[in-house]
């Protein structure tokens, strides 16, 4: 540590505001990085999680539970492939049910990862540094879960490649005027670009792990994955340009993906879906649920691995503010939904809205309002934003609320549309629940593996942060 002190002695003759403790302590937000860290200490701390720490009992128990749930998912999927999608409660008129609800829910969760890593990078929000790697991994795993649902919902997933345009003996093309086909391109592009972005961020850190580990096998594996990264000035120069460009590309991409998911609904003539405000509303909801999921995962992670120095209260506070802001946008969305149903003068629109609020699934609407509108209001208070239990609880509640929202949009709109003779209530089966809970198991299985095998925080970006902080000091 002493070698970092060099060169700072001149500051004594030139005191700045930072030297006045009384001034600093009043209104400065919590730091992005706790003071006292060096290049070496941040490197050792993060890489030790992967390289030297014993696999904790908590990890094994958590992994075992997630893995069991994932097995349940596979079991349900095998049964689904054998018997067809009749095992689900999905039936006319509710032809889109749990699988599509789960798809939209998962893909929305994924969006915060890209937002944190790309948009906040472009906006020079340096607090993103400690959470972007983890959020990107979360994106990847959430999109993996999301992508499975439309595939399984097709009934014959083994011919999924019919959605991809290729010269075929059937002499057919996909219908390129349909948002459902746009979705195929949007989600697969999003998944691919997220992998590239995430892996690119990992390359210098994989090189760090390669150089830090004493295990020959790990050295070879991390070495191969790092592609022989040496951190030369020429490397870094191209790397930074590429990383910035990828961030710039990912930003409109993330908006387009959830807009297209919104258009899946908006182009349908079903009352409650056929509205131009779906795309922006879906994007706001995606950010809202994604930030909540990052918070849900980050709070236990930082205390288990002692990462409080890197994921500080400042991060949690900022994320709570984003949740509050996007939650308010959601409230605006719900309010305008009600107003425009009334203002449209269309009896079907009016009925669907009334049916959402007061119909047989009214509980889900009021649950949604409580979860997404009422609880986030706690974050107006600074004291609440500083309380870990409140942050954790509200973030879980928001995730539940966002699932309910997609349930309301998909199921309630469909179960009573135009002709009362075609109305029917929807009843999910045990397989619907197994697939939902099982996909959560898949998500956590991947996350547990990630936390154990790869650095959860971007080490080289933390070193940059240490460098910048030192220069400012």
């Amino acid at each position: 540590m002493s070698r970092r002190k060099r060169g700072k002695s001149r500051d004594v003759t030139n005191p700045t505001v930072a030297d006045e403790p009384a001034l600093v302590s009043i209104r400065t937000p919590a730091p992005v990085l706790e003071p006292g860290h060096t290049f070496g200490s941040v490197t050792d701390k993060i890489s030790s999680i992967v390289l030297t720490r014993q696999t904790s009992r908590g990890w094994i128990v958590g992994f075992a539970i997630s893995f069991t749930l994932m097995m349940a998912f596979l079991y349900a999927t095998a049964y689904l492939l054998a018997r067809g999608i009749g095992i689900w409660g999905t039936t006319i008129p509710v032809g889109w049910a749990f699988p599509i609800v789960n798809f939209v829910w998962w893909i929305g969760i994924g969006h915060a990862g890209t937002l944190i890593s790309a948009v906040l990078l472009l906006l020079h929000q340096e607090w993103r540094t400690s959470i972007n790697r983890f959020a990107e991994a979360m994106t990847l795993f959430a999109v993996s879960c999301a992508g499975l649902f439309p595939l399984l919902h097709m009934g014959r997933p083994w011919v999924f490649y019919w959605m991809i345009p290729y010269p075929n003996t059937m002499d057919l093309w996909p219908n390129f005027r349909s948002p459902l086909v746009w979705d195929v391109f949007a989600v697969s592009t999003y998944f691919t670009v997220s992998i590239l972005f995430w892996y690119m961020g990992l390359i210098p850190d994989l090189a760090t792990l390669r150089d830090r580990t004493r295990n020959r096998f790990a050295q070879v594996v991390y070495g191969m994955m790092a592609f022989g990264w040496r951190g030369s000035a020429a490397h870094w120069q191209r790397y930074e340009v590429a990383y910035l460009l990828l961030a710039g590309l990912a930003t409109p991409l993330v908006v387009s993906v959830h807009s297209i998911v919104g258009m899946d609904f908006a182009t349908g003539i079903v009352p409650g879906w056929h509205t131009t405000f779906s795309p922006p509303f879906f994007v706001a909801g995606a950010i809202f649920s994604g930030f909540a999921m990052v918070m849900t995962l980050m709070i236990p992670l930082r205390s288990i691995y002692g990462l409080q120095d890197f994921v500080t209260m400042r991060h949690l506070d900022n994320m709570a503010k984003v949740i509050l802001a996007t939650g308010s946008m959601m409230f605006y969305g719900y309010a305008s939904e009600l107003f425009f149903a009334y203002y449209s003068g269309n009896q079907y629109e009016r009925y669907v809205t009334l049916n959402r609020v007061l119909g047989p699934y009214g509980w889900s609407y009021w649950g949604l309002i409580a979860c997404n509108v009422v609880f986030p209001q706690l974050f107006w208070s600074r004291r609440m934003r500083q309380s870990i239990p409140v942050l954790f609880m509200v973030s879980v509640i928001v995730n539940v609320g966002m699932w309910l929202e997609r349930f309301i949009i998909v199921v309630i709109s469909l179960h009573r549309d135009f002709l009362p003779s075609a109305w029917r209530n929807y009843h999910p089966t045990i397989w619907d629940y197994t697939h939902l809970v099982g996909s959560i198991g898949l998500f956590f299985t991947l996350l547990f593996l990630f936390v154990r095998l790869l650095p959860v925080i971007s080490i080289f970006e933390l070193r940059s942060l240490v460098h910048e902080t030192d220069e400012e000091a």
Partner: protein
Amino acid sequence: MGAPSKPESLYGLLAEFEHAEDLLHAARTAYAAGYRQMNGYTPFPLEGLSGALGQKPTRLPWLVFCGGLVGGGAAYLMLYYASVISYPLNVGGRPLHSWPSFIPITFELTVLGASFAAFFGMLALNGLPHPHHPLFAVPAFSLATRDRFFLCIQVRDPLFRIETTRRFLEGLAARVHEVQP
């Protein structure tokens, strides 16, 4: 073996620094002294180092631009070919070339093409994957991914003379390592 001042059995001389500023200073000094075949190695992107070493800005943005053009162009042509030439289908009297509905897929594939160009272009221009490199044989170099800064002047630099270059680097850095090829 060649002339003693240009030993064939050497890749270069590697100077080790503890502080980023020292490396920047050394890079500027070495460039001013006329050295060109050299590179700096840092644990994080160090602003200004590339310029101090006289490296030109990368052409990567052009590559990414071309990747985007290829992706978007190919997408639009594919959509046009499928909807107008190969399988003209009258959907509710809409024109066959209904370009607004072609925009989303064109956009997605533009982003995909540009992202592939950014990722693989970065690797290709950097000459990666390159699992073995002479520098990896220097034990101290493993700290280049932790907290040390390095400057390597290669033998192939026309000004490289083993004694003078070593003395030059020793005037700037605490430790100088020989790098075997």
